[in-house]
């Protein structure tokens, strides 16, 4: 894949992600209203719109550069907890994709691993604390399992998304011990985590995009 083509496709992907988040802005915000401070959708929408504008203007030479721009833009526009977390995740993923103009399963695996590690380094949370990690870690595990079973990249992404969805459902059953929802104690039960939900939307949109682009 040439850089130009990558850029066009990458910009389209980022556009699709932005559209998906903006579409879910109110939904994500209402999830956050229940156990947080009613801004997650607003924060994410602001971030992805800024990313869309930025990468359209200057997409960068490779996937690494593009993701770095994405991460830095998220850091400087989202704010709250999700800004540094998603920002760091994309910056780390950028590191794993440095110089690449095409992606294979192994690279995506490394990108996901780096992104998740970034979130953990920054937020000091672990799986089971009712955060985005409860979507992302199961997603990663499912991705790796499919990859090891030699499935095509799109199938791996599909498996990851499905696992993320189950992770979101799981967040309904646990008490938050990290982030703003942790103040609620038992009252956080029954509510799904906004960040886990936005992570899943990201994954689902990427998967969808890749399947259609096949």
């Amino acid at each position, binding site marked *: 894949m040439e850089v130009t083509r990558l850029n066009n496709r990458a910009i389209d992907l980022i556009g699709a992600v932005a559209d998906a988040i903006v579409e879910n802005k109110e939904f994500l*915000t209402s999830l956050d*209203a*229940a*156990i*947080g*401070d*009613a*801004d997650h959708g*607003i*924060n994410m929408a*602001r971030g992805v719109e800024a990313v869309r504008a930025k990468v359209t203007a200057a997409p960068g030479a490779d996937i690494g550069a593009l993701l770095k721009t994405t991460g830095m833009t998220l*850091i*400087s*526009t*989202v*704010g*709250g*907890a*999700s*800004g*540094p*977390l998603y920002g760091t995740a994309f910056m780390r993923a950028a590191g794993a994709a440095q110089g690449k103009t095409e992606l294979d399963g192994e690279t995506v695996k490394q990108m996901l691993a780096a992104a998740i590690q970034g979130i953990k380094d*920054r*937020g000091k949370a672990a799986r089971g604390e009712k955060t985005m990690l409860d979507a992302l870690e199961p997603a990663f595990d499912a991705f790796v399992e499919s990859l090891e079973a030699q499935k095509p990249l799109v199938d791996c992404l599909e498996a990851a998304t499905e696992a993320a969805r189950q992770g979101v459902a799981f967040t309904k059953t646990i*008490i938050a*011990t*990290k*982030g*703003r929802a*942790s*103040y*609620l*104690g038992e*009252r956080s039960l029954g509510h799904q985590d906004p960040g886990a939900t936005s992570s899943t939307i990201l994954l689902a949109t990427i998967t969808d995009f890749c399947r259609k682009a096949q």
Partner: protein
Amino acid sequence: MKKVINNAEQVVEEMLQGIVLAHPQYVKRVEGFDVIVRANAPVAGKVALVSGGGSGHEPSHGGFVGRGMLDGAVAGAVFTSPTPDQVYEAVKAVDSGKGVLLVIKNYTGDIMNFEMAAEMAEAENIKVAKVVVNDDVAVENSTWTTGRRGIAGTVFVHKIAGAKAETGASLEEVKAVADKVVANVRSMGMALSPCTVPAAGKPSFTLAEDEVEIGMGIHGEPGTHREAIGSADQTAAHLLDKILADMAPAAGDEVAVLVNGLGATPLMELYVVNRKVAEVLGGKGIQIAKTFVGNYMTSLEMAGFSITLLKLDAELKELLLAPADTPALVQF
């Protein structure tokens, strides 16, 4: 949603413009950033204080920029921690070479964003120290939470660490006194009605006509529980009990009191609350060195209040009573 705004996206920008236009003798804008700093920043020979957080808590924090309190304030989107680059700009704009203390309220987002800013500043050889305020006793401080939230007690950190910085103290000394305030300040709040984030367009929660939310945060987060509305005295006594149980002051101890309005509660009601606070403290032989009553750390148009107690020693008392000259707090 019924608000006096132009549009939800521009509200922080327009507010900042309004603040600077109202108080040019106190503050100026760092152009291109959601940052206001003292009109004469950086102040030579002085450790600088920077605070901030999501907007919607006015006069916190921009209203406390001025002599004897903050040097800079960073305004995030409504209820959303500002981003690291914004905080970093504030740090650069106020540093005189003596270093900068970041006053951070204990929320995951605030901590992460301010920490990233501190890393950026340190990379540029600016000395930075941090203090994390966690005064809200509503939630038990346990391994099950990310620690207590920072709420109205933050204003006492601004006041006292700000006064210390004004004496020419070093960054370590200013941080030490800020940490001492944090160790001795406790708050708890209640809400009668929710607030509406402008961009969200509807209230974060709803309460029945006879219902109040106890121990909620200052971002429209739900609190520990709901209960039927009680009398002002009952409610004040309940919040105070929680604070006192945690703080365990002894008869003869001296405290500062802040009865803080969350935005829509009239001063009349805050003074009714203060009457009970003074009565309870008096009954325990606790001395009140100074009382503040008013809107210091708000939550948009939420109705309700919080009570803050700060246990004083000689140093904290002297610094609390020292002069301040800011848009929202002036003291001879």
